[in-house]
């Protein structure tokens, strides 16, 4: 089978390409150039740097597969970076990796693979595709510490038919071992952690440079008293402690961010507890198919038992069996039934929730 493999220059995608090549497939390696400097050069910090693509090229050469760097900067810039800045300016907490997977990696990339005559695309994500009762199902990877199904929740069964995740049954140590056995230089390369286009810089200064966030706003407690002022709502995310005034007895946390007034509402940890929230832009892998649901509200958060209910088209109410903190509008709520991913959507606030609660 002819397969287009996304190669970032990291160990995971290197092993992905290696495993497919060794099982006899015709593998073509591609590095997506997502982000660039002012003169079109590859970035030098974060992930997807010029050095990373050089690592990918070396791996491709070692595996003896064709390799290309392709330009994805236009779709990445509009779908991910602008969205990232926009969401912060609206007081939301974006998840650029989800946006990137949704709009860049698994749309543009699959489309390109078809044009190049490939039957499938493959990436080094830790997740499993299982052909089961519901068709092509997306499952958590067997190795839970690295499970990345959360950021892939938007992939429909139809999309999954075109995708391979060869690492879904492997652990990270196993992947590193395979890389070493294949003689790949990336075997002991450090995992990337940063938001790729922000790099080592603080995301706040990244946003600062790109959008005028107007005048500073107020920090207000739940009783409506002003406790201080702040330099811009993009510096806050729900559940955050940093940057809030002290000396109020209990430590303070951000409860809500109001982009209209510029107010940041704060309270104590107890005030963060919620048992209801709403998801919009909800999509399902194979349709809505389960009642023993768990919801995960952040990458790496513990899944929580819940019930969901459609309140209007594409908008779902999530009722948790126990309240929790850290529900951040802009992040994604992803639904699972056991290890099977059911679907997910974006956590919304105010406009939908207020209307719907009434």
């Amino acid at each position, binding site marked *: 089978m002819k397969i287009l493999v996304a190669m970032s220059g990291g160990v995971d995608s290197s092993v992905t390409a290696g495993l497919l090549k060794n099982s006899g497939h015709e593998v073509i390696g591609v590095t997506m150039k997502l982000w660039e400097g002012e003169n079109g050069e590859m970035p030098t910090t974060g992930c997807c740097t010029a050095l990373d693509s050089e690592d990918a090229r070396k791996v491709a050469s070692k595996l003896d597969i064709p390799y290309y760097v392709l330009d994805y900067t236009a779709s990445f810039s509009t779908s991910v970076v602008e969205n990232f800045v926009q969401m912060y300016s609206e007081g939301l907490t974006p998840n650029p990796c989800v946006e990137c997977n949704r709009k860049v990696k698994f749309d543009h990339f699959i489309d390109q693979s078809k*044009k190049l005559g490939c039957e499938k695309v493959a990436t080094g994500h830790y997740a499993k595709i299982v052909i089961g009762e519901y068709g092509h199902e997306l499952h958590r990877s067997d190795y839970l510490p690295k499970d990345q199904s959360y950021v892939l929740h938007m992939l429909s069964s139809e999309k999954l038919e075109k995708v391979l995740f060869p690492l879904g049954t492997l652990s990270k140590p196993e992947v590193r071992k395979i890389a070493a056995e294949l003689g790949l230089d990336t075997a002991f390369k450090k995992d990337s952690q940063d938001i790729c286009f922000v790099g080592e810089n603080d995301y706040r200064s990244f946003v600062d440079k790109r959008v005028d966030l107007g005048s500073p706003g107020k920090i207000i407690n739940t009783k409506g008293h002003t406790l201080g002022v702040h330099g811009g709502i993009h510096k806050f995310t729900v559940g955050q402690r940093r940057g809030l005034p002290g000396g109020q007895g209990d430590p303070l946390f951000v409860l809500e961010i109001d982009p209209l007034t510029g107010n940041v509402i704060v309270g104590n940890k107890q005030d963060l507890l919620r048992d209801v929230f709403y998801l919009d832009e909800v999509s399902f892998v194979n349709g809505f198919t389960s009642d023993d649901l768990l919801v995960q509200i952040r990458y790496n958060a513990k899944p929580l038992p819940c019930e969901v209910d459609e309140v209007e088209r594409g908008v779902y109410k999530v009722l948790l069996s126990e309240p929790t903190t850290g529900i951040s509008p802009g992040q994604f709520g992803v639904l699972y039934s056991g290890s099977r991913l059911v679907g997910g959507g974006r956590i919304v606030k105010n406009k939908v929730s207020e209307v719907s609660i009434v």
Partner: protein
Amino acid sequence: MKFLYLDHAATSPLRESVWDAMRIAEDLGYGNPAGSHTLSRNAKNIIEESREVIAKSVGAIPSEIIFTSGGTESDNWCLKVPFYNKYPTRQDLVTSSIEHEAVLNSAEWVEGNGFSVEYVRPSNNGKVQVNEFCKKIQDSTSVASLMWGNNETGVIQPIHEIGKKLNSNNDLIFHSDVVQGYVSKKIDFYKANVKSGAISAHKVGGPKGIGAMFLHSEYKLSSFFHGGKQELDRRAGTVNVMGVAGFAAAVREQQHRFDDEVDAMLNERNRLEEILSQEEGIVIIGKDEERLPHISNIQFNGNNSENLLVYLDLEGVGVSRGSACASGAQKPSHVLISMGIDKVSAESHLRISFGWSTKKGDGEKGAKKILEAVKETR
């Protein structure tokens, strides 16, 4: 699968005679050419015989040819060195917006050091207009630089007409990057009234990493590299004897077979363009202008160059988008954008180029594969 190489404007394969010349040069003349024993003299002789070959090929006298590491170094030297003096008497640089990066980025350096630079844009056909270019040249202009033929579109620039007009302006250096022009046009720097030029070996079947600068005997430029007194104290560093020998061998063969080789390039290019023209949505850039016979730049409406390139490579055909790019993914060509082509269209181009090793039938084979790629990736 035999690879169909249609990217000669990027670089060309080594001619058989070049391999031989390089081996002989290292066998007989591995001594340092700046030394004084027999093996050094052998090396020195090889260099000087080679210099005569290169000089003759561009209508120059041998002492006007200085060996460099290639076109890029030659361009850097001619464009930047006149401005090295902090307060040069002449403070301006005039060039075009369609130059190779070696010239453009050197010009940017000059600009960044506080001097004035004019980038003359071409008309929509890709040719810089004589009057547009000349009217930017003032008494204060130090260097005027215009390429002989464009490396992406092949469009030949009006060097002779401009050279004629500049004849009276004696202190001005009229520089021309002839790296592509040299592949398929007879170059005579004197006839063109060009005072300095950049030449490269690897585009004509010679080795990479060697080239030459032509500098008219009436002009002097300070050294760009400092060190020993090689090349008549103009370029420091032990001369690349093997490279120089290979360069001369390539040029000797090229000059000997010039008409036949250029005819073959032209025939294959015409055949390719003829086949592709029958398809809808295909535009040949600069078709109505005089072009270098070895280059064709084609716009494929509704296609994306990257997909075409990858598809063709997987099918064993090597073409490119424009100039070679070190980092892999490319931006739309500055040449096409300067010609007024929009960004989306500029991302649907391929440069197909022929060279000394082009065989009869390559144009037709290439055209058929390209049509297949156009259909599959549209």
